[in-house]
């Protein structure tokens, strides 16, 4: 029992389960998944589908945060990528042509990678604090997206493009499959190679990493680039889902959600130890929260208060210090030690 609750992912997972159960109480059919119109249909599928972009961005963000950085520009990259892809497609004579869509997608992702590279270079080469370095792109990038769309919505009518964010493959939403593949690849890259350890070393102690000969700069640039590419894919999904590029609003404030997902998943913002599985759980928790708000009919003006309460509860329940202080208040029990109390990281079984 102890080992189960001690696992780093136990609490985020528990929170997710509790939230789903709470939904079932309010909306009895919440967990039911049926096949309708040749694809899976149900609230759970919605959560996965709408959660897919957030999962992707959060995965990218995890890498950046592991190096001790942060990326505020993901929302802007989401907007740019979707805008560019839709702009290209809308300009084609045959919007349904697969090669045309592939070119558009390729260009959008290429541009995203360039933007990530830019962020990475500002941080690793120019030595600008990550929050400011990426703030520049956060502000300017939204402008670039609007420049591409001229501030309007660009509609596309392209079945192949629609597949990315709104289509289904073998009854499963394509976006979910994409997210799953990216997560799996990232997981492999991080734990089957030495990438994860080296990123954690950089985030844990930058000077020691330098003295040990880690190519910190390259890895940092890599992390930002990967993050931006993830955001780019998410941008494609979001615009594809509604067949519209909205340069003004796509991805707005998504950076906050992504960071929140990472942190709920159990990765510290100070860098170092990270967990991708936790991040995925965190993103699902956030998406479930939104869906819960919509389905249970929380009045719009109290939505934020509701969110605040849930986020606070989630974090408190995850905090070992809180549990120790509140739940195990035996008389004379030692308060947790204030300095080096082993965080969840210490008992982690590596994902």
């Amino acid at each position, binding site marked *: 029992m102890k080992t189960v609750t001690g696992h780093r992912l136990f609490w985020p997972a528990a929170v997710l389960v509790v939230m789903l159960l709470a939904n079932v109480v309010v909306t009895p059919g919440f967990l039911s998944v049926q096949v309708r119109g040749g694809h899976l249909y149900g609230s759970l599928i919605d959560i996965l589908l709408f959660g897919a972009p957030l999962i992707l961005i959060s995965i990218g963000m995890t890498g950046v945060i592991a190096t001790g950085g942060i990326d505020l520009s993901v929302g802007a990259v989401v907007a740019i990528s979707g805008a560019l892809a839709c702009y290209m497609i809308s300009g084609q004579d045959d919007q349904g042509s697969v090669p045309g869509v592939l070119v558009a997608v390729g260009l959008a992702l290429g541009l995203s990678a360039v933007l990530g590279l830019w962020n990475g270079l500002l941080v690793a080469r120019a030595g600008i604090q990550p929050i400011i370095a990426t703030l520049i792109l956060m502000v300017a990038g939204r402008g670039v997206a609007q*420049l591409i769309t001229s501030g309007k919505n660009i509609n596309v009518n392209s079945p192949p493009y629609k597949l990315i964010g709104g289509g289904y493959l073998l009854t499963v939403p394509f976006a979910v499959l994409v997210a799953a593949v990216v997560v799996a690849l990232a997981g492999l890259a991080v734990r089957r190679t030495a990438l994860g350890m080296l990123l954690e070393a950089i985030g844990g102690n930058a000077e020691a990493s330098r003295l040990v000969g880690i190519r910190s700069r390259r890895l940092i640039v890599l992390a930002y680039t990967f993050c931006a590419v993830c955001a780019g894919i998410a941008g494609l999904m979001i615009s594809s889902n509604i067949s519209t590029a909205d340069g003004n609003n796509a991805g707005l404030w998504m950076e906050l959600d992504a960071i929140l997902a990472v942190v709920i998943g159990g990765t*510290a*913002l100070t860098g170092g130890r990270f967990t991708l599985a936790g991040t995925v759980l965190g993103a699902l928790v956030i998406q479930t929260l939104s869906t819960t708000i919509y389905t249970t009919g929380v009045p719009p003006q*109290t939505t934020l208060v*509701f*969110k605040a309460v849930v986020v606070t509860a989630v974090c408190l329940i995850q905090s070992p210090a809180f549990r120790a202080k509140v739940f195990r208040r035996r008389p004379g029990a030692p308060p947790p030690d204030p300095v080096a109390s082993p965080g969840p990281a210490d008992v982690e079984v590596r994902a």
Partner: protein
Amino acid sequence: MTVLGTRTGVRIRRDHVAVLVTLGLLVAMFTAGSIAYPAFGSGQVVIDLFIDNGFLLVIAIGMTFVILTGGIDLSVGAVAALSAMLCAFLLERWHWPVAVVLPLVLLVGAGIGFAMGYVIHHFEIQPFIATLAGMFLARGLCFVISVNQISIKNPFFTEWAQTRIPLPGDMNLTPTVLIALAVLAAAFWTLHYTRFGRGVYAVGGNAQSALLMGLPVTRIRIGAYVVSGLCSALGGVLFAFYTISASGLHAVGTELDAIAAVVIGGTLLTGGSGYVLGTVLGVMLLGTIQTLLRFQGTLSSWWTRIAIGALLLLFIVLQRLLGSSRPGR
């Protein structure tokens, strides 16, 4: 006896140099603006910078405390909106006297700061999350109090909002500027001449060491959030003076502006290093960029954003090139 060379005090002075470089760049940017747009170069434009950004300045000063301890406070904008909303609501709907409302509002701000600080310190919740929850809560409460905007008709407020203190040369300023400057002075004094202030730096430098050195880390850390909450609430009140109204949509995104101002001012997000005077320069820079673009006046919405980003980049790169290189580079 051994002779211990040290890496001398150069670094400290370098820190000052960084602030001076920022100041220099700001002046340069201002001069460039005045050459491009003659009306830009007037003293009133400078004063307007303070008038228009007074509330941001106060909020950013509070943020400086938190960032110096190595934390972050995302709730500032929402708390400001909430305190403006509380002001408006209590004054207009319940007709409470100003003398009660203002202290109460400041108290609420400090209380929210305390609650977040408490949770962060005692339950070891990351500042980002705790204050994000605080942001949701404060903004949510705004809407719970009133979805509609509330106009403040209270004579005290309207009086203050329109008071202009004349200065020589056909210039004038508002009392809010004086309040902001007073807060600045108090913050400077606190950070450099009180134990609490030095503790803020110590905790940011190394919280565990500070604890082992016997500093009251709990009090300092929570105190920083209380200061930030208090400043946000005061910022909200200034905002209410500025707009004589309250809305749940006020001051959205102010937290990012405040953080940006603090960091541009040379404070390290990892804590322990920075000056509140730098924060002032950061606020001024953000304001100057906006003002420049207003004078430019032909950019479309998106070119405005791109220009803001580009000017920010230019400034920061110059700052890096001219200023000190940080240790460990």
